[in-house]
């Protein structure tokens, strides 16, 4: 039966409707929510969305509500196994506690990426990424 459904956005996402999904955006944000609708561009409607941040073996989440995500920005969309999600060996902490760590981590990663890009550009003859119009 699966083989009869062609590999299109719609074909792949029908089974995900009304399921709890994890969405990773291009900016690295991780959202969990119930997929209520989508279209051929993978624009998504997520209900009861929470944003999660992770640091080592702890995580924190913040309720964000109803999202309409523009498809272009979606990197990954995966179903969350409700039976197994409680078995994940991560500890939940307060958002306020973890936010600073997470911000530092993001900043650190950004700086490392920039340093890497700089070296690739100056010494290895690569072009620069993220220039005008590159991000869209």
């Amino acid at each position: 039966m699966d083989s009869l459904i062609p590999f299109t956005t719609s074909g792949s996402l029908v089974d995900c409707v009304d399921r709890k999904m994890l969405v990773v955006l291009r900016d690295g944000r991780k959202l969990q929510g119930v997929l209520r609708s989508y279209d051929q561009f993978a624009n998504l409607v997520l209900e009861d969305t929470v944003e999660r941040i992770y640091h080592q073996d702890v995580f924190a989440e913040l309720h964000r509500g109803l999202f309409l995500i523009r498809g272009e920005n979606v990197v990954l969309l995966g179903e969350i196994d409700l039976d197994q999600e409680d078995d994940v060996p991560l500890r939940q902490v307060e958002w306020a506690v973890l936010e600073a760590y997470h911000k530092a981590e993001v900043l650190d990663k950004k700086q490392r990426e920039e340093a890497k890009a700089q070296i690739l550009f100056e010494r290895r003859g690569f072009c620069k990424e993220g220039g005008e119009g590159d991000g869209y």
Partner: protein
Amino acid sequence: MSIEIAGERRISSRVVRRKGPRRVQQDQADILEATLLASFFLTTTVKMLPLSLLNAAQNKPMLVELKNGETFNGHLVNCDNFMNITLREVYQTNAEGDKFWQLKECYIRGSTIKYLRVPEPLLDAVKDEQNRAREAGRNARGGHSGGGNRGGRGAPMRGRGGARGAPMRGGRGRGRGM
């Protein structure tokens, strides 16, 4: 579900048989995509596409984040199918969230948007609205006027029954057999 599968089989066999130029195949892929979407919306109960939700959010407060991280808080005035939007009474913040601007009205090009956050009750409100519209349409048709909304955009979710998938596909296809 059975409608969907049956429709799928018909369509996909057509794709295999036909050895047309690439453009035609692309057209068929589009038709396939549309068909799948249509069958999805027919087989499930009332569903709304992301852009219809946006349409329904007119005059509601919302937060728009652009790809570059800037956010815009305001009430939706208007939107189109490209996701271009206009907001009124806007608070704009920069990507770092440390600078603020207040704008009376602003226009945002759809392609620059990362996501929109809309009030949660909206989803239920719209579902109710659609249900009511569907009921009303059903009653009206029962009276005298035939299916007035046939082929209209956004109409596919008002299916009358399973067998409806086929005629719609015929009406919607573009450029097939050219």
